[in-house]
């Protein structure tokens, strides 16, 4: 085989390999579910009480990857995702990851507390309010799940029941990306009237 033919064969092989790598369906859909860095916006900060009455601020999670789940006890699809989120919390909490659940139940803790205890939710749960929902674009459908990167920016939004693997792929990709040193948290500090407690 001449050097020219050998070169052509090798080049074709490399090109084919590249095409197969990028098009192969089994390739994890990581990039598809996350927004590129330049399209990410700061996740609005909030201050809400958790089940123990302690104030939870999103800004407390600076430098961590956060899964922020808007849900309700009456929401069937939310109840499919909650056990996944409990798994994610167990599996990734030592890597700088936290799940925060914001319940949008009208009945507040009367509805949420028994549910949290029944299910044994292992992450922090708060009761949200209108202003929390408005800050996040006026949450209408539940569940709505935000993945927030280590810079405090919204990297993905999933509205409705989403596949477990899609969410987990997003988390894993974000965990592999360090925070940008110069950018700080990137989170917006809101005026007091927007920071609701309940």
């Amino acid at each position, binding site marked *: 085989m001449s050097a020219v033919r050998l070169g052509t064969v090798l080049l074709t092989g490399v090109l084919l390999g590249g095409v197969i790598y990028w098009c192969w369906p089994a390739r994890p859909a990581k990039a598809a579910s996350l927004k590129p860095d330049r399209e990410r916006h700061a996740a609005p900060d909030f201050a809400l009480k958790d089940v123990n009455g302690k104030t939870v601020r999103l800004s407390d999670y600076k430098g961590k990857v956060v899964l922020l789940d808007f849900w309700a006890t*009456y929401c069937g699809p939310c109840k499919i995702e909650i056990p996944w989120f409990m798994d994610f919390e167990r599996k990734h909490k030592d890597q700088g990851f936290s799940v925060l659940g914001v319940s949008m139940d*009208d009945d507040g803790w009367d509805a949420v507390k028994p549910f949290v205890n029944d299910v044994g939710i292992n992450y922090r749960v708060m009761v949200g309010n209108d202003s929390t929902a408005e800050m996040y674009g006026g949450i209408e459908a539940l569940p709505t799940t935000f993945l927030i990167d280590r810079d405090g920016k919204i990297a993905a939004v999933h509205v409705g029941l989403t596949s477990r693997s899609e969410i987990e792929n997003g988390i894993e990709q974000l965990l592999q990306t360090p925070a940008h040193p110069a950018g700080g948290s990137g989170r917006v500090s809101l005026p007091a009237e927007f920071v609701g407690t309940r």
Partner: protein
Amino acid sequence: MWAQGNQYLTAEASQKLVAKRGTATEAQIAVSVQPGFHVNSNTPSDAYLIPLKLTWTPGGALEPGTVVFPKPQMEKYEFSDKPLSVFTGDFDLVAKFKVSAGASQGPGIMLGKLRYQACNNNSCFPPKTVEVRLSYQVQ
């Protein structure tokens, strides 16, 4: 808590109610759930689910009684292990009333509120309320 926003259901009285003082009467309320959505029935399968509920504002010539709901559908959804007791599409509620013996003759309007909570195959929506207006004539 939430702003009412989009509605996933409509409800209206099928016709004007005409009844005599001191008698029992009933009104049909036509309910229509948007295609692709369902609402919990009046007897949901899970304590956490929010039932369909019709209430009337007190006052006027009509004394509200029971509300008769149709038989719910037991539907299986991807997000639930067991079938859920729901209503979909078009159905009627029957609202029973008693016309006060001392009611004055003439027209009136009864105002009701139908509270519901809707979901589709992969999302649920906050509980909402639609107003139901029932015109009546006491003879």
